[in-house]
């Protein structure tokens, strides 16, 4: 079936009879997923419509090896495995079984279809629900912006669903563990009140945010054995990989399937659990071992560089303050520690070193990752400007980016306002000037300003270029003026017909005008991608909110634009940079870990930044207290916080170094971006490591 070489340990797993349950555990790069892939091919050779394969991973990026394997010509022909996540499975069940589950799920409109909410649309509705409560003074003592407030309330809802306790218990769980000012306890109550009001609103209107999807999925399967049997009956085989990054509710489900799916392979990474802030629970995953007659543990790691491994071992010991009896001399080949006084110096040095690696060491850009705890816009901008200047391709990965930030969004919406004067939305001269520059080729700031100043009238009406006095027209030039007039003509023609929804208007505007020859968007593929996302976002918004808009007698398109301007962008689509196999990765450290990708060189920025150690400040939620492993009668003290951060840092450092094959560059900046001096446990650990290394050298 496969030409790959398998070790004796791997072979032992593969020899297990296919119709049985297997638990496989081991560190990163010990060959677990290779076993999973072989097993999947073996299963596929036996699969048919009544004996299908289900592959589950905690998130999509972790399923890439399985998807790639399925795309190989030697993958057995036949019915394809269903590769999905808990969220995907939940949505599949709800979509297929909606007519049966509406009443038992508590939905008040059983004769209407469900609407699945994204994080952004959930925030939009939550805001509507919370406004009266905020007006009453809820959370007034907390200095927190609304987007963070709503995302934390949603996080508590998600935690309840993923860990598997009633939403109404959240506040009590947090209060039981709280050990600070009393006011926080009332904030927990207020947060829960908002969450329950939002839940009730969702049930009233058939809206399903992520937490409700998981809760419906969990409850329906637990209560209705027939529904569960029907849903899973076509699956004969199951593979669940990276179980340590998944949540207890998924583990519960897998436990309950032991009698229904005859062949299950569970794979767990022994030293991971990086997604604990999202509910990942490696301890819960261990329960699955007990239902497997065959359990295996791999220990050997392949393709691990000895110096990096030695550095990982020593640095991890320094983090957890464990004595290291011996530091291997080869460890010096694993790292470079660079100290600079100012933050911008670090950026310059990082980029110059990358350039040297590419030119002198012949490294590919794809062999390099630049990592930091977070990736703020300023850091991303500085790095990207330098790399662009050096002509080095890079891929900056952040979870999502707002469409509202894109110049093309502003441009098309400016013209949309002009085409729909009844919205009564004002266009500023600056907006029009930017919009003109975005759509007319070779239009500089001065001519765009002249056009904007001379054509914008009555708040949002556009006059023709040919109505401008000849002297000014000459300064603008006919070429630009005629193109501008084509826009005005198109808008005038459009206004003679019935008004269209904003998404359709933009589609027409793009197809019939802006993408035609003579305009800047003609064959501009990058902006076409952005506009596709924008139009889809508006369409989703229209489908979701049209009833609400009718009830409030509002124009849905105007409602979209106003929502966009408040910063709560509905359906903000994740815009992933186009896949580039030959690019330097710039990413937050946790995002990089979830790509499961090894690079030759890593750059750890500003290791004195406390962000490497400290978890995000989330006053209304708590990843550890709201987990299954936290005893309800205990309080969360500073000692626990310290220990949790230490463990997380040790895990993070080990995970990153597992994914580095040659060298890691660690940067210490004397002053951070804000000009403050700083220190962090990662920096302290590194200092201890240096002290120990120096001691060893002296001793020798």
């Amino acid at each position, binding site marked *: 079936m496969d030409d790959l070489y398998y070790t004796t340990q791997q072979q032992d797993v593969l020899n297990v009879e296919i119709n049985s349950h297997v638990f496989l555990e081991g560190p990163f790069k010990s060959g677990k997923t290779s076993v999973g892939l072989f097993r999947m091919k073996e299963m596929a*050779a*036996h*699969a*048919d*419509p*009544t*004996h299908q394969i289900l592959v589950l991973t905690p998130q999509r990026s972790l399923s890439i090896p399985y*998807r*790639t394997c*399925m*795309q190989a*010509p*030697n*993958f*057995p*022909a*036949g*019915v*394809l495995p269903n*590769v999905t*996540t808990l*969220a*995907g499975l939940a*949505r599949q069940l709800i979509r*297929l*079984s*909606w*007519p*049966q589950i509406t009443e038992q799920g508590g939905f008040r409109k*059983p*004769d*209407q279809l469900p609407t699945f909410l*994204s*994080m952004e649309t959930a925030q939009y509705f939550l805001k509507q629900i919370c406004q009266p409560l905020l007006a009453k003074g809820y959370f007034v003592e907390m200095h927190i912006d609304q987007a963070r407030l709503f995302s934390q309330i949603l996080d508590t809802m*998600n935690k309840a669903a993923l860990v598997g306790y009633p939403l109404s218990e959240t506040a009590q769980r947090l209060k039981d563990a709280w050990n600070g000012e009393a006011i926080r306890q009332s904030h927990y109550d207020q947060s829960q009140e908002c969450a329950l009001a939002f839940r009730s609103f969702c049930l009233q209107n058939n809206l399903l945010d*992520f937490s409700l*999807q998981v809760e419906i999925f969990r409850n329906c399967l637990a209560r209705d054995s027939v529904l569960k049997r029907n849903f899973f009956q*076509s699956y004969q085989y199951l593979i669940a990989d990276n179980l340590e990054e998944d949540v207890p509710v998924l583990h519960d489900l897998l436990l309950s399937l032991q009698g229904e799916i005859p062949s299950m392979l569970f794979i767990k990474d022994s030293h991971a659990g990086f997604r604990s802030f*999202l509910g990942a629970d490696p301890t819960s995953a261990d329960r699955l071992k007990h239902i497997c007659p065959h359990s295996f543990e791999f220990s050997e790691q392949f393709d691990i560089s000895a110096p990096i491994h030695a550095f990982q071992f020593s640095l991890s010991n320094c983090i957890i303050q464990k004595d290291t009896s011996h530091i291997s001399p080869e460890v010096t080949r694993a790292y470079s520690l660079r100290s600079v006084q100012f933050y911008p110096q670090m950026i310059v040095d990082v980029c110059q070193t990358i350039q040297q690696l590419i030119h002198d060491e012949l490294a590919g850009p794809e062999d390099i990752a630049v990592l930091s705890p977070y990736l703020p816009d300023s850091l991303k901008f500085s790095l990207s400007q330098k790399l662009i200047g050096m002509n080095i391709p890079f891929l900056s990965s952040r*979870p*999502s980016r707002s469409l509202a930030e894109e110049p093309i969004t502003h441009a098309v919406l400016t013209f949309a306002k002009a085409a729909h004067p009844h919205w009564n939305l004002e266009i500023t001269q600056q907006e029009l000037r930017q919009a003109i520059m975005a759509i007319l080729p070779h239009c500089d700031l001065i001519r765009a300003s002249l056009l904007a100043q001379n054509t914008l009238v009555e708040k949002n009406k556009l006059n023709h270029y040919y109505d401008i006095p000849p002297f000014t027209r000459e300064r603008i030039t006919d070429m630009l003026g005629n193109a501008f007039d084509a826009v005005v003509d198109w808008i005038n023609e459009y206004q003679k017909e019935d008004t*269209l*929804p904003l998404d*359709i208007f*933009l*589609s*027409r505007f*793009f*197809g*019939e*005008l802006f*993408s*035609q020859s003579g305009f800047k968007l*003609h*064959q501009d*593929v990058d902006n*076409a*991608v952005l506009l596709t996302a924008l*139009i889809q976002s508006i369409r989703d918004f229209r489908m979701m909110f049209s009833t609400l808009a009718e009830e409030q007698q509002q124009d849905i398109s105007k409602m979209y634009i106003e929502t966009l301007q408040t910063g709560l962008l509905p359906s903000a689509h*994740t815009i992933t940079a186009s896949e580039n196999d030959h690019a330097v990765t710039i990413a937050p450290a946790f995002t990089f870990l979830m790509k499961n990708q090894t690079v030759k060189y890593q750059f750890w920025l500003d290791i004195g930044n406390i962000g490497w150690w400290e978890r995000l400040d989330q006053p209304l939620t708590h990843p550890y207290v709201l987990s299954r492993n936290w005893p309800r009668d205990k309080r969360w003290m500073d000692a626990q916080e310290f220990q949790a951060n230490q463990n997380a840092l040790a895990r993070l450092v080990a995970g990153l170094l597992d994914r580095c094959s040659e060298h890691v560059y660690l940067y210490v900046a004397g002053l951070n971006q804000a000009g403050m001096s700083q220190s962090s446990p990662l920096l302290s650990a590194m200092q201890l490591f240096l002290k120990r290394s120096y001691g060893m050298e002296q001793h020798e």
Partner: protein
Amino acid sequence: MPNLPDFRFSSQSLQDFEECQQRFFLRYIQKMDWPAEESSPYLAFEQFRQKGSQFHACVEQYFHHGDPEKIERLIKDDDLRLWWKNFLRFSMEQQFTTASSEILFQTSLQGHILIAKYDLLVQQEDGSMTIFDWKTSASLKRTDREFLKKKMQTLVYPYVLCGSAGSQSIQPAQVKLVYWFPQYPDQPEQFPYSSIQMQQDERVLLERMEEITRKTLDEFPKTEDEKRCRYCVYRSYCERGKRAANLFEDDLELDFDLSELDMDIDQALEIPY
């Protein structure tokens, strides 16, 4: 054609290649998003697509043990309700041993991967298999047999099924493709399969896939039949016109296949949390 590791042929991509090689190039090689309108009248076209996809969803719920009465309660559109009733009547008349809806199959032919998503795959007691494809049409007349016979879907669907190994080997003579029209429930179009047909289809498919993979990037010309451009989102990119044509007023045979439109299996939904 460049080596695209995630590329797989489907009946839709091969049909695009038949109709316009440039469209194939832009859609599947360049993977270019181009947010222009496909057809007018815009809202009517949107409603037509929504009805089609809701019909597919209802049928899928039905084959996942959904109660027909409860499913019907979710239907608000009169046309769709009529289609649904037609489907229920049709379904009662059938003898299904096992039925799988919206199921994805894959096979490979000399290193080229070919996938097909079936609206419904039914196995009868005698072991024979029928592939059903629901054809909801925007025009007032039913798509004719000759048009369907020439469609790549008619070649690809049974071929992929017979090319599948699995635990049971499938004989071509036991396979049939049925196009069923909710608007014309009593006029399904049936295409029985055979070993000879399979050999012929294999030759055509292989030739086509070889031709595509041999081509360099500048060898995907625009179609000569410019009528097609009126229903193509890339028309402004290709400088082939401005406005989308009216779907209901044209004599051009069009087939907006809903099951294939959303077939990109790598676009499975994941909620960012």
